[in-house]
């Protein structure tokens, strides 16, 4: 998943070099509607913020093709920025490079775990172990279903504490 890590580095570099740090900070206040503990930035949805003439352009990328939260996310960004007087404003959706869980920030992984969602484990997909239970930390876990309550999650269960949990699918 090198392309994902590379995309994360590029994304972090874009933010570091941005002439609009206050806009990025404002957007840090918007979280994913389905996972309120993770911001759009941490999740990797927020890709870029720049100015084209007078227009502020915010670029986002969808996690999944059919993610129903994208419309709400766009509305949240628009509301937040307009309230702070950032107009004119345009929100662009970019598909390439495709979103990957490797684009997530280290903070996102911690926040997910604290919220009861096992963070994505790329090694697990290749057969290298199981995601640890976010409740008790046991590795004695098993998949219940490849698909969970949202497109980005799978259903797992812990055989140690018996609790079911959501697992953020690595893609």
């Amino acid at each position: 998943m090198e392309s994902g890590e590379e995309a994360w580095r590029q994304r972090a570099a874009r933010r570091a070099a941005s002439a609009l740090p206050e806009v990025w900070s404002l957007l840090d206040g918007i979280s994913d509607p389905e996972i309120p503990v993770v911001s759009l930035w941490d999740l990797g949805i927020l890709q870029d913020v720049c100015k084209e003439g007078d227009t502020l352009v915010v670029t986002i990328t969808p996690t999944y093709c059919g993610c129903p939260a994208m419309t709400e996310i766009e509305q949240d960004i628009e509301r937040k920025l307009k309230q702070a007087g950032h107009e004119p404003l345009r929100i662009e959706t970019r598909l390439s490079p495709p979103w990957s869980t490797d684009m997530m920030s280290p903070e996102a992984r911690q926040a997910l775990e604290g919220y009861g969602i096992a963070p994505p484990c790329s090694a697990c997909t290749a057969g290298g172990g199981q995601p640890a239970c976010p409740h008790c930390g046991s590795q004695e876990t098993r998949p219940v279903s490849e698909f969970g309550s949202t497109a980005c999650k799978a259903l797992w269960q812990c055989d140690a504490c018996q609790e079911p949990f959501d697992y953020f699918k690595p893609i």
Partner: protein
Amino acid sequence: MKDTERKQATLEYAQRLGDDAVVLGHRLSEWCSNAPFLEEDLALANTALDFIGRARMYYSYAAELADDGRDEDDFAYLRDQREYRNLLLLELPRGDFAYSMARQFLADVYNLLFLERLMQSSDERLAAIAAKAIKESRYHLRRSRDWMLRLGDGTEESHARLQRAIDDLWGFTHELFEIDALEQALVEQGVAVDTPALRDAWLEQVEQTLAEATLERPADDWAVKGGREGYHTEYLGHLLTEMQALHRAYPGCDW
């Protein structure tokens, strides 16, 4: 090929791929609240969403290329069945669970092979959509293949139902590997996928899974085709009637 011709052909191609995605997505969505158990209900609804999202991406691109004021909704909701160019396999009724899983498996194997090639398209937008969609299709195939093994190598009843489904679907798979003049011209431009070239790899994977699932590979003694020309089974019209009813009754409806 002139730029204008290429643009028009790419528009039609994107529309075909959108038709494939929306029709299969709708069929999958019909399982919502009807699946055998809750986890499967969620999985089918999630998969349906992936395909509907894919359709939106293809249609949005087609709408941009058309540049005539139409948007993705016009493509999905305001075209009649003769204007739809989806593959027939994808429009067949959902049938029982075995039938839906068999269709899904045949389509998923195809989709992975197809998207791997489309990622290499000289058309950047199509390549970007493919790069996004292929990640989802890998999950789809893992699951549908798993069900093939569980049902095929399961009980007498599940085996019989899955074999019947494969037999009934097989004749519709030949169309996946047909190509017409429009796609051939786009293949030469590096835009479209040369689908006849996918058949050997598809067959190899499908035959391997069928054998593992203790299922018979049907004979190639019948074939139904015509989706890419707009000739459909009797089922598509009914699907569109349901899918388009709201939009046609309340054009531009927003809530």
